[in-house]
Structures are given as C-alpha cells and as structure tokens.
C-alpha cells in the first residue's frame, strides 16, 4: 500500500499539521518507507486472534467514591497561553 500526496494532505489536515511543498517529498518518502516495512504483518496468520490493546489485564478499576483534593483552578490555568475570567481564551470559532 502506498500513500500519495493527496492522502498525505488529507492526513495532515486531520493531524492539524501543515506540510510545506518543499518538505512534501521528504515526508512522502519517509512515510512510504515505514509503511512498506510494516506491510510485513500481512505475512502473519491472524485469523481468530483476539486483538490486544493492553499487556496487563485490569478490568473495572474502581476506587472509593470519596472527594479527594485535585488540582486547584488557578494552578490548572497557570500555563494558559491566553486567559480571561478564569477561562481559556481562543480565537472566534463561529464566524459572524
């Protein structure tokens, strides 16, 4: 499977990354090198194999329903690039 420039642009938009025209060639080669290497997985017989997302089987990790201190609001806002009245401020989302 080969990934072409159109596909890379689509993926870049989904990833919120901007790939310049001059970098496109390098990115295309690097991505295809890796994708053709990992294509070896097609050689494996995976029929009926249960996918494994985690190495340690832990299910339903519960804790007591108790209020414990968490990060205070002002500390959570400490690294905000822009803030107003204790909220994160961003550029307009819905255009007028």
């Amino acid at each position, binding site marked *: 499977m080969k990934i072409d420039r159109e596909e890379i642009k689509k993926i870049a938009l989904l990833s919120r*990354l901007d790939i310049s025209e001059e970098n496109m060639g390098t990115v295309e080669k690097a991505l295809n090198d890796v994708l053709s290497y*990992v294509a070896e997985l097609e050689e494996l017989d995976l029929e009926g*194999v249960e996918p494994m997302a985690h190495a*340690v089987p832990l299910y339903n990790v519960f804790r007591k329903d108790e209020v414990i201190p968490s990060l205070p609001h002002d500390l959570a806002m400490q690294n905000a690039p822009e803030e107003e009245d204790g909220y994160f401020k961003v*550029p307009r989302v819905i255009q007028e």
Partner: protein
Amino acid sequence: MTIHELHQKLVAKELSAVELTNAVIAHKAKTEPTVHAYLADSHEQALAVAAKVDEKIAAGEVISPLAGIPGAVKDNICIKDQQATCASRMLENFVPPYNASVVEKLTGEDYVSLGKLNMDEFAMGSSSESSAFAKTTNPWNADYVPGGSSGGAAASVAAGSAVWALGSDTGGSVRQPASYCGVVGLKPTYGNVSRYGLIAYASSLDQIGPVTRDVTDAAIVLNAISGHDHRDSTSIPGERPDYTKALVNDVKGLKIGMPKEYFGEGLNSEVREALEKAAKVYEGLGAEIVEVSLPTSKYALSAYYIIALAEASSNLARYDGVSYGLRVPADNLVEMSTKTRSQGFGAEVQRRILLGTYVLSSGYYDAYYLKALKARRLIKNEFDSAFEKVDVLLTPTAPNTAFKFGEKINDPLSMYLEDICTTPVNLAGIPGISIPAGFASNGMPIGMQLLAPAMGEEVLFRTAYTFEQACPECNKIASIGEVTL
C-alpha cells in the same frame, strides 16, 4: 560512585550530603560542555535537600538509601515548578503545576535532583538527536550518539554528572541508551511504576525506569519508585517486594533462554561474541543455557511502530495551543492549532503523528492498527510459552553499539531498526534490564538485555547481579566519569 557506596559514606559521616552534592555539581560543570546531558539545573533545591539530609544524619535519624545522593530526571517527568519541555519547542515554557507520582515518592525519600535531562523530542527517537535544544554526546566518545530517547539520563550517569537518573521506556528508551553508554537501564513491568505525571507518548507501552551505575542501584531506585497508584488506572495493585533482597550472587539451576531470532542476521559480530561469552559465564556459574524460539518477534518492530504511533497521534492531539504549551496566534481555531503544531513539533514528531493518524484513519484501521494489535497478542503468547520453559531470556539490547551523529537521522527506518530487540518487551509488558557486557574494538560499550515474566523483576536482578559480580571488567567507567570526592 554508586548510590549504595555513597550511602555508606554518608551514614559513616565520611562525607556530608552537601559536600557530595557540591562535588557532583563541580564535576558536572566539567563534563557538561562536552556531554550536554542537561536541559535545566536545580542546584539550589538540590543543596537545600542535601542540607536537610545532613541535619537528619547529625540528629541520628535513619535516612533512606537514596537520601542525599544527587540524581537527575528526564525532561518528560513532571516536577512541580520546574520546566518540563520534553525537548520540544511545543513545551519550551511549560512549568508543571504538580509532581509526577514518582517524584512525590522520591521526595519522601529526600531525593536530590540536579536538573532535567535531555531526550529525543517527546521521547521519539533512538539517538537523542531529535531534541530541539541540545546535542547530548556519548561520554565514551563525543563523536557518537548516547542513544535515545533517554540519552541525557544514560549520558549523565556514565559521565558522573548524576549518580542515578530516571528515564522512560516506550520501545527501549531506557535500555538502548544504557547499552550505548555502558550503564544499567531497567524497564520495569508495565504497571509496576505509576505513569502519573509522565508526559505521554504511547500510553499502553510507556514505563518509567532507572538508569544507574550498577544493578544494586537499579534495585534501590526501583524500590523507591514502584508501587500501586490510584491516579494511574493501569497501575498494578498490591505490595511490591524489597528488590534489594533479590540481589543474590547465584544462578545455579537457573534456566536462561537465548531466542535464536535475536541472534540472526543483522546482529553486529562483536555484540554476538560478547553475548556468547556472557552465556558461557552463566554456564560456568551453574545456569543452564537453552535455545528457544520466538518466531513472531521478527514482526514486533512493525507492530510496535503502528501501535506506538497510533497512540502518539492521539496523545499529542492535546497540543493545540489552547490550554498550555506553545500558541501561535491566528484568526481562527483550526488555523491556530495548525500553525502551533507545525511550528511547535519537530520533523520526527510530525512524521510520527502523520503515520499514527494514517493507521487509525477510516479505511486503513483494519489493515494496520487492528493487525498490529493481533500481532501483539501473538508476541505476548510466545513470551508466555517461552517462560514456561525458562526463567530468564538473554538477548542483545541493540543490534549494534552506538553509532555516529548524523548516520541515521535522515533515514527514520534505519533508526527504528535499532529498537528491534527492545520493542517486543514493551508490547508484552514484561520487564527488561540492560547491563554492560563488554566493549567493541572501537571502545564503545556493548549491552546485554535480560527479560523475565511480568512482575519478575526479582529474577532479573538476581541474574543481572550475578553477571556483574562475575565480570568486573564489563563495568569499567568512562574516563570522563571518574568523580573526585
């Protein structure tokens, strides 16, 4: 200069913690211009803790084995009010408002940290060359990379600018640099050490681990940082043993498996010779060497990269310029995020996000991600069967010794191949340790990897410790790493 030796000196009042800390700071000032292991210093805080430890010693109080011994922490682990940049422009000005769980635990032990250590950007790399801020060199020879992504951790310990360090290991990032720098690096069982406060790369694989001068020190640091944590839902419940009790110089009757797939083509001949010699040493000490086969291991690197990059693309989606980290202003939200991410992330991080997004995207999920998760199951099952026959597995840590700067940075795939022996271990969640096993003809260190079943750190320590006692010449220190106290 090990934790356990220095602890004895502190307790015997041959040396004060402040004197020790000052000595290591002075040594660091000499090594840093060449090694560049650190991204930031915290000498004042270090000396303040050291003074507190000296007061405890003077008052006759019992101090913890780590108390007052200067170490350092990889820059993706959060220490409150100290920068955590992940060696990325994205987090250049990020100051965590909280401590990672490991840092909280270490604070309870009166740990001394001299600063934050360089790494590959967001822990993505095998040479530390992808750091946005510093070029860490190998203390054995500055023309060579220290390995990665915990290159600063391994280089600082090898250079003596830290007695111990914390790194993180997603696909070999503690073990491979430890191997390249001739020190000990441990990746604990997934879930043994809390990941709370470790800036995420691939959450189902990430694990914090110690880098130390010897195996005893690795056990001391693991004692300090392991344990259940309710803030990490993947943390394994229950008490942890005292790992230093496992430091037993005896492998009689132990079955050590050598998986033939790890000794195939692509393995450097000097690395092979060193490990075959190590196997002979074990045999001479009464262990039984067994050949085993892990045929799916060959596919582990592919499965690893698909899974790690998929998780990375999801984890790094949070860097959008909204709540913390870099923000590049723009007229609308999408443009702001796109500009922020394109300027804030380096080339390798961007490549990995693109690949991760691709393998998760509609139409390709089944072809890549799902296949990789199934392959992961087979790899885990094979380790399980191997551990029914043997107690420990012995493999190379990396197929080669350290390479030179620039050799692989423009060919990502060749860089990924350096992780071929370490990535299966993260997929299976089992513990692995890299210990020094000799030197190549160019003087660079060779690492041996030992693996055990999940929560089998004790047998790892015993096996590693026994070899260390049998091969003192393997534990030679780089000349730059000799510290005058």
